[in-house]
């Protein structure tokens, strides 16, 4: 009788199986991460003296934030918030209107190859650059003010929305599309009755989500001259009116929270 069944040969210790099963890969990843962290921190060039100076400065800064002062600059805050809201609304609508044709063209199962390539390229291009860089150029071309912000946010919306729309169309159920096609529907009827009802619920949810993102981004395009609440915020920072800045930040948080609740509710409703 072999000794394979003796209890001795069973391991008495159990260890959790690791996430990455190949040992050498796991260890080389850890090793690489350690080396990277060492080099990364080495080149950080932190001016510790400046940082330690910053701690009392930070305390003063934080105390300047409290209590937030909504009222002394209420007029310009209200102006900025409203401008941001208009900008958000029109850029979301315009962006989505532009992304419908681009998204249809960027869906592999809908568009011929050349159209597909062109539309994918448009999506990739508008997705690459952050809203702020788009806003810098929009300000250069269209002048200061909310119109530049509108252009920048619309372009950014196209990159986001057209990509998700195209992906959703590619994932749709081909059986329903086939059924409509077999009734002899034209291309437009086909898109309207087979494709659109399938992607609509998710797209409505994403539209509200994008509205939310655009509002948040509208606070940033103002920093480079694109109008909206960002401009008011930057002015408050530049004048060292940190209590007004705190009030603006709290208002932004409140509006974003409200939008998030609304979008969650709406998405539950349509899905």
């Amino acid at each position, binding site marked *: 009788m072999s000794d394979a069944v003796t209890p001795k040969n069973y391991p008495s210790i159990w260890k*959790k199986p690791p996430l990455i099963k190949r040992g050498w890969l796991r260890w080389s990843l850890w090793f690489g991460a350690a080396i990277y962290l060492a080099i990364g921190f080495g080149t950080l060039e932190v*001016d510790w003296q*400046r*940082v330690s100076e910053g701690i009392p400065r930070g305390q003063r800064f934080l105390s300047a934030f409290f209590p937030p002062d909504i009222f002394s600059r209420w007029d310009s805050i209200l102006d900025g918030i409203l401008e941001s809201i208009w900008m958000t609304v029109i850029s979301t609508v315009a962006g989505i209107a532009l992304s419908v044709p681009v998204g249809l063209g960027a869906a592999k199962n809908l568009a011929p190859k050349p159209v597909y390539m062109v539309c994918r390229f448009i999506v990739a291009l508008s997705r690459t650059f952050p809203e702020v860089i788009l806003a810098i150029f929009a300000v250069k071309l269209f002048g200061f003010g909310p119109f530049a912000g509108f252009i920048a946010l619309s372009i950014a919306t196209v990159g986001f929305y057209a990509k998700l729309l195209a992906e959703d169309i590619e994932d749709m159920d081909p059986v329903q599309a086939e059924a409509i096609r077999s009734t002899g529907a034209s291309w437009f009827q086909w898109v309207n009755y087979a494709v659109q009802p399938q992607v609509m619920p998710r797209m409505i949810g994403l539209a509200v989500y994008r509205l939310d993102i655009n509002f948040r981004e509208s606070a940033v395009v103002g920093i480079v001259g694109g109008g909206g609440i960002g401009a008011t915020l930057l002015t408050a920072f530049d004048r060292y009116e940190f209590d007004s800045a705190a009030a603006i930040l709290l208002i932004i948080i409140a509006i974003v929270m409200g939008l998030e609740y609304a979008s969650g509710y709406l998405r539950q409703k349509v899905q």
Partner: protein
Amino acid sequence: MAIINTESGPVWKRRTTKQEWIYWLCWLAAAAVFVYCFKLVSDKTIWFFVTDAGAQAQDMASRMVPPKWSYIHDLWRPIWDTINIATLGTALALVIAVPIAFLAAKNTTPHPTVRAAALFVIVSSRSINSLIWALMLVAIIGPGILAGVIAIGLRSVGFCAKLLYEAIEEIDETQVEAIKATGASGAQQLSYGIVPQIMPAFAGISVFRWDINIRESTVLGLVGAGGIGLQLEASISTLAWTQVSVILLVILATVIVSEWVSAKIRHAII
């Protein structure tokens, strides 16, 4: 869906007449809101500058080509800084986000009030853009890469914690119960019951956020928080458009590479 009886027999329609009315009224209201908002924006716009945009664009494009390729040698260090800001910022965010996610998840939170506080932290971190965080941090700890790292970190906490606590809430409770039945303590349940289940989600979230952070860290320099944005700002304000085009191409390349890397890693994990 409705079938309408007409003289020539029943006709199928997608909506009843009443639904049709409501549908079109909603569209009308939405269009009215849009037109009103557009009017308000257009009131604040100097249309001369807008109509001038085509000529401006042409002018700018002619100034941007050919890109001044020799400038790229000045950019290696800023690119390295940008990648560092994104990576170290993501690491910082994950360190903060993990405990917050456990406090915010319904099934692991110690108390509902703690949960509410954690959710508030998540929402405030998410609603303030990294550029605004950077604006504040530059004022506090001075311009430099550290401000960028912390700004990216603070901005990403909300994103990572939100996705992570959703992953924690979706775990399979029976596995935790099985661990509990062996007499494991709370910490052991966490490490043997919950953590293995959320590990793939955790890895996916961190790579996903890293990819976004690369994109965001390219602009932090605009407010003085280090990275390639500093060079962009400097080149734009000195009207060195041939340098601007090089910087934009470099940003484009960095973003594409980071997207490719993150897609590869996520593909390997999931």
